[in-house]
């Protein structure tokens, strides 16, 4: 109590350090020291109790007691928590909208056929053995509150590259993706088991998988070439769908027209023949008269329409006569009679 020197006039008597008081104080400190050993474990946590540094027990959620320091110490850790490891990118803001930063050095890798590809991956894992996680490996990563680097991250990168390295680029880009995810998961679990670090891999997911930007255009061109192929085929099918039915229609038209022609020819012939027979049967009754009548009737029809020059005498006499007459007729001063 150094304050006594600062307040000499104080009427408060000095603390009476009776043995009783001292024992009480010691007992109080001792009690406080003992009470320090009370601890609670939350439902998603596990606690490890160390006695003189050696693993003594693991306690489940609930209220517990351990012998006070330095005899026993307790380490409480979350076990239900899911951890997430990102390869090739980092989420800078979980959003929404989420924001990411690329890590090209992590995502770019060689494939089995010596092509270069970008792969981004997310691994989810859980700490299933707290004692292993705490005691068997240093620099685990997120479990120890460390962010980026650490054993988990290294192992993820190694497993990803090793598995992608076994596959050709087209497999990684397309149909092999699921298989690759499974292989990575197995590989990763194998590594974690080897390191005895108490981690269980829950899920491996390949995120963006694509060609590097230097060759991106060429890959896109392949996709558009595929579409070009489809387009060309579709256009040809369109042509086919246009031409074939129309041709069939025209064929029908041609055949029907021929059919019509046939019918016309036959029926007309039949008609002509019947008419002829009828006329003939009448004609036979009076051939001369009928012939004359038919002749005159026809002339009656024909002659009014045509230009006629009637010559007296022998028509075979001179050709020149005929031509002259014709010219005269065309000159407009006809000497001969004309029709109408």
């Amino acid at each position, binding site marked *: 109590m150094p304050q006594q020197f600062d307040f000499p006039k104080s009427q408060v008597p000095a603390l009476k350090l009776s043995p009783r008081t001292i024992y009480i104080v010691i007992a109080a400190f001792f009690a406080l020291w003992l009470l320090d050993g009370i601890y609670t474990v939350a439902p998603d946590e596990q606690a490890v109790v160390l006695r003189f540094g050696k693993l003594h027990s693991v306690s489940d959620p609930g209220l517990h007691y351990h012998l006070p320091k330095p005899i026993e110490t307790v380490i409480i850790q979350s076990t239900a928590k899911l951890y997430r490891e990102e390869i090739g990118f980092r989420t800078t803001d979980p959003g929404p909208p989420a924001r990411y930063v690329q890590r090209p050095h992590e995502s770019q890798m060689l494939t089995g056929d010596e092509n270069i590809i970008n792969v981004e991956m997310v691994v989810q894992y859980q700490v299933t053995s707290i004692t292993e996680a705490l005691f068997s490996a240093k620099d685990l990563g997120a479990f120890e509150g460390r962010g980026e680097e650490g054993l988990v991250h290294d192992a993820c990168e190694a497993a990803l590259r090793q598995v992608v390295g076994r596959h050709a680029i087209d497999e990684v880009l397309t149909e092999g993706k699921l298989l690759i995810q499974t292989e990575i998961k197995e590989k990763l679990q194998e590594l974690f088991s080897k390191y005895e670090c108490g981690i269980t891999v829950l899920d491996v997911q390949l995120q963006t998988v694509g060609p590097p930007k230097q060759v991106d255009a060429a890959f896109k061109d392949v996709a558009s*070439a595929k579409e070009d192929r489809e387009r060309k085929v579709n256009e040809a099918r369109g042509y086919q769908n246009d031409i074939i039915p129309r041709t069939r229609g025209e064929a029908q038209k041609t055949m029907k027209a021929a059919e019509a022609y046939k019918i016309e020819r036959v029926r007309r012939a039949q008609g002509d023949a019947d008419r002829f027979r009828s006329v003939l049967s009448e004609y036979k009754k009076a051939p001369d008269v009928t012939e004359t009548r038919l002749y005159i009737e026809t002339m009656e029809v024909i002659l009014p329409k045509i230009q006629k020059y009637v010559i007296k005498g022998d028509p075979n006499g001179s050709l020149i006569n005929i031509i002259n007459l014709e010219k005269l007729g065309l000159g407009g001063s006809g000497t001969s009679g004309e029709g109408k």
Partner: protein
Amino acid sequence: MRPAVTFLVALIVVLFGANLVLFTVNEIEQAVVTQFGEPIDEITEPGLYFKLPDPIQKVTFFDKRLLDYDASPAQVYTKDKKILVLDNYARWRIVEPLKFMKSLRTVAQALRRLDDIVFSELRKELGQHELHEVIATNRADLMRLVTERSDEVARAYGIEVLDVRVKRADLPPENEAAVFDRMKAERNREAKAYRSEGDEQALTIRADTDLAATTISAAAYEVAERTRGEGDAEALRIYAAAYTGAADFFQFTRTLEAYEKSLDEKTVLVQPLDTDFFKYLQGK
């Protein structure tokens, strides 16, 4: 008052004394006891231990857990003279702290030594394999070999090398450009193939179409002409049947009919008067 003070003093002395001669080794630790600087004993199990007070015996603690060794990326030549930029890591632990303490003393020193061991083993091993083996086929075996050999060497320092692993194996930038060119060429080839296939299929379909159309037209023509011929033949038969036996009359009526059809106003007819039709114009 006296017994109380005595008790306090005794307590303090006991605790102080205990602190001098007792020490705990944690689950994640192991320890080496040195006497006047000379390592004399190693403790690998956790617990409470006794030693002589400080100036005589001292305790040095080492991590017992798996430790990280992450090398900086380095270039390695493969058997086919290609350069690979390797970024590898190793997981190792101190298994014999006494030996470790005698040879390397600190973890920093150990990392430098591991750098030598692991990198030289890697370089030796990769130099015997071609690039595609390193990348694709053999990586697991290679790494197991490197791990085993590194481990053998490192045991002399009380170190176990559990796992050497290639984190990244990339081509140097100048080789990357060549790879990109090759990739582009491959894709261009593929794109061309798709386009040509498109042409092939389209042309085939069009040719098939034209063939089918021509076939249909020709078949229609065949049928049509045959039909016409049948019509013509039938008509001929009908006419022939009707006119047989009346050739003169047919000629007469048909000629008259033809006159009617063929003579029009452009026709100039020069006729002598002594035809049948005009004979009455001459008078008798």
